[in-house]
């Protein structure tokens, strides 16, 4: 037992948690913006996939990782805008539209990847982001290497959480967004455009989901594979529920998830516990199922039409 503990709780373990949590933080905060405006964005899984693909291809051909991130963001925004057209402008079922956006985006990602790269015998890869240490801070024992020797994207993820909290709770824009998600008719009477706010919430969600997808290919895997997302988007949907639609709690949920994931990787590698590795892969999904308490925005899933009250 002591052996397990000493093998697991090393600095590397905590560094891994932060690294694994980063894409979850981006995508979960993204989903949060959409849901607070009243739209459940089930396009997340596909948008992450498409963002990962366009981000990878752009980085591959321009040798610029940041251009890749930009491409992934734009891809996500585009698909989220399409989601907005279906659910906000046309008022269609958010569930089915979201599944449609996921299918469409995933199809696009695979189709265009084949067109661009064909079926190469070796997987095309890129030079991944490397950790950038923050001077002084990175020399703090324990905390330094865990928190301050990460990639720039992870620092951005750290920043996204307080920024989201600030935007949602401390600005008039955030108040409008939340009102649109809770009581669109009241917001409408107060002169707030419900559809404009929902489009904004969705487009922000798409941008962040795109970054999350790109992170996976640019930090974790440095190549694009068809299994790169493998359900991570759906986990983020559950994380928003788990975090009760708040940015801090959702981010904390992402960290908790990342910890379980890092733990399973280590347990798998250490072969101290002889269990099928699928049990570990299953754990985040099982945990996500237990996020039972629902305190969703009141107008989530309900299309808004001015004339119908």
């Amino acid at each position, binding site marked *: 037992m002591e052996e397990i503990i000493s093998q697991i709780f090393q600095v590397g373990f905590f560094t891994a948690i932060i690294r694994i949590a980063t894409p979850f933080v981006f995508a979960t905060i993204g989903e949060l913006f959409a849901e607070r405006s009243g739209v*459940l964005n*089930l396009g997340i899984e*596909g948008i992450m996939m498409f963002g990962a693909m366009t981000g990878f291809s752009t980085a591959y051909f321009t040798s610029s990782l940041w251009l890749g991130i930009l491409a992934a963001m734009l891809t996500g925004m585009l698909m989220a805008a*399409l989601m907005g057209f*279906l659910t906000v402008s*046309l008022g*269609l*079922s958010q*569930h*089915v*539209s979201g*599944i*449609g*956006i*996921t*299918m*469409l*985006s*995933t*199809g*696009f990602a*695979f*189709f265009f990847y*084949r*067109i661009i790269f064909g079926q190469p015998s070796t997987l095309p890869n890129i030079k991944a982001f490397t950790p950038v240490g923050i001077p002084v801070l990175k020399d703090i024992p324990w905390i330094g290497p865990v928190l301050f020797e990460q990639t720039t994207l992870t620092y951005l993820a750290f920043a996204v959480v307080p920024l989201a909290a600030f935007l949602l709770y401390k600005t008039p824009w955030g108040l409008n967004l939340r009102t649109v998600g809770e009581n669109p008719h009241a917001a409408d009477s107060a002169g707030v455009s419900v559809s404009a706010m929902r489009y904004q919430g969705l487009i922000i969600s798409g941008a962040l989901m795109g970054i999350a997808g790109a992170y996976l290919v640019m930090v974790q895997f440095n190549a694009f594979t068809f299994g790169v997302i493998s*359900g991570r988007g*759906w*986990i983020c*949907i*559950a994380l928003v*529920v788990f975090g009760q639609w708040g940015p801090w709690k959702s981010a904390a949920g992402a960290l908790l998830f990342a910890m379980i994931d890092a733990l399973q990787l280590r347990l798998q590698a250490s072969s101290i516990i002889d269990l*099928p590795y*699928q*049990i570990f*892969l*299953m754990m985040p*999904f*099982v945990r*996500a*199922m237990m*996020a*039972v308490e*629902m305190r969703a925005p009141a107008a989530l899933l309900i299309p808004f039409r001015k004339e119908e009250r």
Partner: protein
Amino acid sequence: MAFRLELREKTPVWFNIVLPLSAVMATLLLCSGLVALAGANVFHAYSELFLSAVSSRFNLVETFVKATPLIFTGLAVAVAFRAKFWNIGAEGQLLAGAMAAAYIGGIESLPSFSLVPLMIIASALAGAGWAMLPAILRTRFKVDDVVTTLLLNFIMYYVMTALLDGPWKDPLSGYPDSPDIRMDAEFPILLHATRLHLGVLLSLLAAPMVWWFLRRTTLGFSISVVGENPSASAYAGIPITRILIYTALISGSLAGLAGAGEVGGLHFQVMSGISPGYGYTGIVIAMLARLNPIGVVPAALFFAVVVTGAESMSRATGVPVFLADVIQGTALVTMLIAQLFTTYRIRTLTTQG
């Protein structure tokens, strides 16, 4: 001139045919851009896509064989969506059914004649059981069924691969696939020298049966009522919770049967790629069919054609097979948009001068 959406009182019957057809047409038109982008002649690619599946008797039978799991998952989703039970979990329920069928089909002590019926029953029960879980979570704890059914797909997939890597692993070859079922457990072939197995017939019978069930039985009728107007049905004394659970059971068992057909009629074992997303395609099929069980059959045949045709199209023209995935997604989106015309009509308003 301005446009306005107006609520429609009644949906004309011919909409059931015209809407899916226009959605499919729009899809093919939109996707032709991608075909051209891939550097292929659109007509050549589309004729490969659609004609190869019906070009010979053998291929035609194969199309029906391919459509079988899709008919079952399409029906599963159609029943569920009618009650607004958002079952995105047909994929996992299919896997549960497939594993149950493979398990029963491999038991040596069972008498031969009982194998096929027991496999069918077991797969339906397994699928129903797996669908029960999200239904209970929704009715008891108000957990969103979309999220739970989605997550359960992954959990079931890992359960399956754990079995394939562990107890079911072939001790000789080491391949991660289950042992073959007994010879007596293989579904009878209905047409000599083809793969037209019992499951194909079952799926074609299931569609009218589900139609009859939804139209002519009290429970079937309640399913639609609960979906369309939950508050009115509560007022009318319909036990919503119980109806939702029944819906999940029926939907899950239909998806489970898809697994039985694949194991008993086609692969005679379980392997990790046994379902290339049949459960998700079922959603598109059910929507194209406008949740009508009879409509599920042509919609499933259409996607069977697309999925099989995509491979020969890819070989002949170099257009990636993933065009089939894009077609699925586009068809779902265009059909959703087309559905608008059932609830709304577009009125042009001429502004008075």
